[in-house]
């Protein structure tokens, strides 16, 4: 190992590159706000609490010199991280909750597949194996241990009604089909799947066979999820490094997350 390859040198090189803006930091998180919609389940199920904020004091009689809030939210609120134990298929896996996942799994490279044109045409657009293989022809094989991030520009839908996109048949948002999830998990060994929509699965994934493949198959195989991401359009197809560390919640199934990406140039 030469001096320039030493870990300490690599780290200081990262700092130098950040300072000189040869490395950029892209914020992949939506603002955690009461205005941001939360996932909706049919009403007979218990619901995920939306993000809420109650003032404790604001330099007033309740606390004269300080301002602070009590916040409350479901684990799957805002831009958030799904741990494998989120789904029943992942319930018996070791080290698969927010507190027990190895911290190493919070830093991983990203492959970004641009589906924005298709999603603009068809809200129910499904990412297929063919589309992934076509991407690989252009950018190379999806490396093992990388995130597969599906760019749809869905995060640009700032109106919550358009973001949720419900009609009488349920939600209409893009996501991967069953075969694509099988391919990413078993043939490419991704660390997880990330989306700009409210779930990693498509809005109509309840009707897939099996239902919710990006939850059932990903989490059943110990893989992770990121959803409600934004700024995927600022990432290159390959080469970005995603840092997404959930809160260390005891046996948590997920957590809001401040996801960021390091991007060259």
């Amino acid at each position, binding site marked *: 190992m030469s001096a320039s390859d030493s870990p300490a040198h690599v780290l200081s090189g990262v700092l130098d590159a950040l300072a000189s803006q040869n490395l950029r930091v892209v914020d992949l998180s939506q603002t955690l706000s*009461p205005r941001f*919609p939360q996932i*909706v389940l049919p009403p007979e199920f*218990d*619901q995920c*609490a*939306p993000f*809420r*904020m*109650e*003032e404790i004091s604001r330099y007033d009689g309740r606390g004269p010199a300080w301002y602070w809030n009590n916040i409350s939210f479901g684990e799957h609120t805002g831009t958030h991280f799904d741990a494998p134990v989120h789904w029943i298929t992942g319930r018996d896996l070791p080290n698969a909750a927010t507190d027990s996942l190895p911290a190493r799994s919070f830093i991983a490279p990203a492959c970004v597949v641009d589906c924005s044109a298709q999603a603009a045409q068809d809200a129910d657009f499904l990412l297929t194996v063919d589309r992934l293989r076509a991407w690989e022809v252009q950018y190379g094989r999806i490396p093992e241990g990388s995130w597969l991030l599906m760019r749809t520009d869905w995060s640009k839908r700032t109106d*919550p*009604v358009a*973001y*949720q*996109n*419900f009609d009488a048949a349920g939600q209409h948002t893009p996501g991967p089909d069953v075969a694509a999830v099988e391919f990413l998990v078993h043939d490419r060994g991704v660390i997880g799947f990330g989306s700009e929509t409210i779930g990693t699965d498509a809005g109509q994934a309840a009707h897939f066979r099996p239902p919710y493949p990006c939850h059932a198959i990903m989490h059943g195989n110990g893989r992770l999820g990121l959803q409600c991401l934004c700024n995927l359009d600022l990432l290159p197809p390959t080469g970005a490094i995603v840092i997404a560390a959930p809160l260390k919640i005891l046996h948590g199934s997920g957590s809001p997350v401040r996801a960021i990406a390091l991007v060259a140039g």
Partner: protein
Amino acid sequence: MTDALKRAAPRNPILPLRVPTLPPGQRSRAALRWTASVAEGRFELQSCHDCGQIQYPPRDACTNCLSIRLTWKPVSGRGDLISETLLHHSNELYYRARVPLRLGLVRLAEGVTVLTHLHGDCPVAKANESIPVRVRAHLDKAGQAALIALPATDTPNMADDRMLREMTSDPKFRKVLITDGKSATGQALVKAFVDAGADIVWAGLSEPWKQPPGFDAISKLPNVTVVPLELTDPRSVEDLAGSIGGKVDILVNNAEVHRAHGIGDRRGTETARAEMDINYFGLLRLAQSFGPALRARAADSAVPSTAWVNILSIYALSALPGQGTFSASKAAAFSLSQTLRSEMRGAGIRVVNVFPGPIDDEWTQTLPPPKLAPAALAKAVVKALKDGVEDIYPGDVAQDLFTKWQESAKVLEREMWDQ
């Protein structure tokens, strides 16, 4: 003939706000018992168990035989106006702002003479001539029972009489906020207030990505404006109060979460918490954000702010075990509404509590009829405001359970086990 009420002109912003005042509100315990019946929409007077005399005003003993065995008897209100006077001066601030006042003596059919306000359309009293009138008992601005005599038959614009309007909260020309315009009851309420001549109906919309059938049509009714309102989000409530809080004349809080669970049939507390967060804390957030401006504007025009309506549930009085957590949240809201009533009292804002039985919507699918149609609930709310009533129990189930609750809350508690 009463002049038709006109839409209130915009307030002249350089003139000081007219501050609400109240008529004298002190009452004896006997008089409070009278107020209690009037608050529920009944007109009763004291009747002596021993000699049968009907007396007014309420006292601790019979003025005829001194018996203290006094009961309460419904009276028709029919009677004859025998004399009247025009009051030009009063040292009471409330009356000072309202003189001249027509007051009269009316001999009721039950044989008792009462001193009463006179509706402007009552013919002038004449010596040796009986003029038939209808006496009504209403709550005045202080929330205490008072009498007003109406002409024997309805006259045009009768509800627009100046003194009658002091005792009622007619939605005509008023600006109304319905906190949930989406639900079945919300849609019915929006429609009922539009039909009642409200100037503006703001229909609260939470979680706009979930829009049920019918809401689109409701939101397009004349004078209806849809406004975002999340009762679980203090910021959202404050934002709406910041935008329309200074204009709302009647606030109808009908937003609720309603699930059918007891204690043992649902693990955990999240659904119960969601019920409490809307049904109880939602009311608290609304009261803190909308209460001050509503109180401040209680005298600011000919059509001032006037009322706050809570859609509670008859199960606030006695829990329906199959809907135990819902019942508990409504009991909490009922308790808070009593504090709200006490805090609104100083401005003469009427807090109307509505205790319906099961409403015919998706959350009472397994309950047998009779169930209250949302439109019937909405009609009852508008009627309560027009009649100046404080507590209503609309529908057969509510009436039945309320009667039983008054007879014995303890017996009813047992009976609810089998409901």
